[in-house]
């Protein structure tokens, strides 16, 4: 059993090891180790495109996960009181949003938006006197955030709803009984109770958006996210720079995790 687990961990970590190893490659080739060096880290960090792609990914992931978490939590809370057809319809939408492949979401968003812009942009030109200054709608941050947020929001709704369902309802009654206003009850009782669900949903949403390639590939417009950058770099010849980027992302997430863990532990120790 132990041996088996070891084998699976090997399977999981050999590729990671190779990524990290080659990130220190002194040579340019991605498949031949020619001495060790940290030059690729310097290259990656001074590569404005990498830095910009990283920023884009971060902005999109942060915005979409925050919006999805806020709206998703609101919807999950509101859904408690909804029954009948509205509820069934909403459930169906969540079901479909989770089930329809990202690739279809990407394509559908792309052609829907392009079709819509084809109608709207000439109208905008008419409204604004000068064609030069008329704002033009296009794919970009907006479409990326909206498309990522769709899936993330469904995730958040599902997770938070499960959390609400598992919540002891008498706590809310107790709070009301002790004189808390509905908002006070929400803030002091409901929110702390469902918070782990919200946090889990937000983290999942962030991870999903940060790592997504296929939806971004279709709806990113002129923006380059990190996965898009990596994909286009990988398509013809990889340099260890890509490995350095991968290793850095890994290192940063590990640091975040360790920090989060220690904060949580300290929080737990305090209470």
């Amino acid at each position: 059993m132990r041996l088996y687990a070891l084998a699976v961990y090997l399977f999981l970590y050999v590729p990671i090891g190779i990524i990290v190893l080659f990130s220190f490659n002194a040579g340019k080739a991605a498949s031949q180790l020619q001495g060790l060096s940290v030059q690729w880290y310097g290259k990656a960090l001074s590569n404005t495109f990498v830095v910009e792609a990283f920023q884009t990914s971060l902005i999109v992931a942060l915005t979409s996960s925050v919006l999805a978490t806020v709206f998703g939590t609101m919807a999950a809370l509101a859904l408690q009181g909804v029954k009948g057809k509205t509820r069934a319809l909403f459930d169906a939408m969540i079901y479909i949003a989770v089930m329809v492949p990202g690739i279809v979401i990407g394509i559908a968003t792309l052609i829907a938006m392009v079709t819509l812009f084809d109608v709207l942009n000439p109208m905008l030109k008419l409204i604004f006197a000068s064609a030069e200054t008329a704002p033009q709608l296009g794919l970009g941050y907006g479409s990326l955030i909206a498309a990522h947020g769709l899936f993330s929001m469904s995730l958040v709704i599902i997770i938070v709803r499960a959390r609400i369902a598992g919540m002891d309802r008498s706590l809310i009654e107790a709070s009301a009984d002790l004189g808390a206003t509905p908002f006070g009850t929400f803030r002091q009782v409901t929110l702390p109770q469902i918070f782990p669900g919200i946090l889990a949903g937000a983290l999942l949403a962030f991870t999903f958006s940060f790592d997504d390639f296929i939806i971004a590939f279709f709806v990113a417009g002129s923006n380059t996210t990190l996965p898009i950058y990596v994909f286009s770099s990988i398509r013809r010849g990889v340099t260890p720079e890509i490995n350095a980027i991968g290793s850095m992302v890994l290192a940063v997430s590990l640091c975040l995790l360790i920090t989060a863990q220690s904060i949580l532990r300290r929080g737990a120790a305090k209470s």
Partner: protein
Amino acid sequence: MSDRNDFISRTKFMEELMRYKKGSVSRRHFLGVTGLGLATSVLGATLSRQAMAQANIGDRVVIASWPNYHDPADFESFKAATGAAVDLNVFGSNEEMLAKLQAGGTGWDVFVPTNYTITTYVELGLIEPLDMSKIPNYDANAFDPRFAGPGTVDGKIYAVSKDWGTTGMATNTANNNSKAVTSWKEFWDITQGAFSGRTTVHDYQLTTIGNALKYFGYSFNSVDPKELADAEKLLLDVKPHLFAITSDYQPAMRNGDAWLAMCWTGDGKQLNRDMPEIEYTLGKEGGEIWSDFYAVPIGAPHRDAAYALINYLLDPAINMKETLFHGQPVADARVNAMLTPERLADPILYPAAELLNALEFGAAETLTNPDRAELMARFKSA
């Protein structure tokens, strides 16, 4: 800038370049002796004057191009000279670029289309006729019309020449008794025989279908249904014997997984340079010759910067740096004048005339033809 600069001799230039590379002379010395410094400084002055005349070209310019196709240092110096940072989007095929532009909202200011796509872009109204007054570095007389010509549609210049090349094949001769494959007939036959599981073909339709058509001696650009049917049958027969359908064949060729690849000039040059047993050859029957261009899409958000960038990259001194970086030949005589005879005699970059003459440029119809697109898709999903 004048066309007739007093350049030093090619031999002298190469000597100086080697010395500079070895580090025995300083960059300043190198630039001073070769005249590149002059070119650069003049250019810088021109640009800053332009920049002042145009008030401001903005802080960025977005270019869609191919991977490993630009020297990042040139983008840096452009930024230093103009204040506009260059955002590079990398693509894998012309079809993909066209698809992106058709979908709209690309945000590109400059992109790099291949010869056969330009008329389509013009017809679809996706690119603008270039304002040549903003590209003073483009000297029509210096460019080989064979490569620069497709940029002109209905007498208007829509795209200016970047570089050119061929599509042939790279053979790892170590696996074939030191013999390179030299025809498309042989290419497809050996793939179904001794090289089974060792060949790669491109993952876009133009060259893969075109070179399959060449097996039967048909035109590279054929859209004749009967001829395409023959090509499809060949491709489907060959598919199980392929190593991959990919345009990223360098790694597989380098590590020995693939022995034969449908290959572009630049990749062929790089493979041959590092592993002499890999030879780049053209098919006897012909095949593709191509040239790439700079063009400006309609509605480019940073139009002034787009022109500034094209002008900058077409400066012969910069263009030479570019060609040394990406390894494709350029059509600009001013640049060629700066290159060494060795390079100009390189059979990979400049194939023999009889081989060159057999090659065909891709045709506009080939790009848009739905039958060829669907054939390729069927081949890939089979």
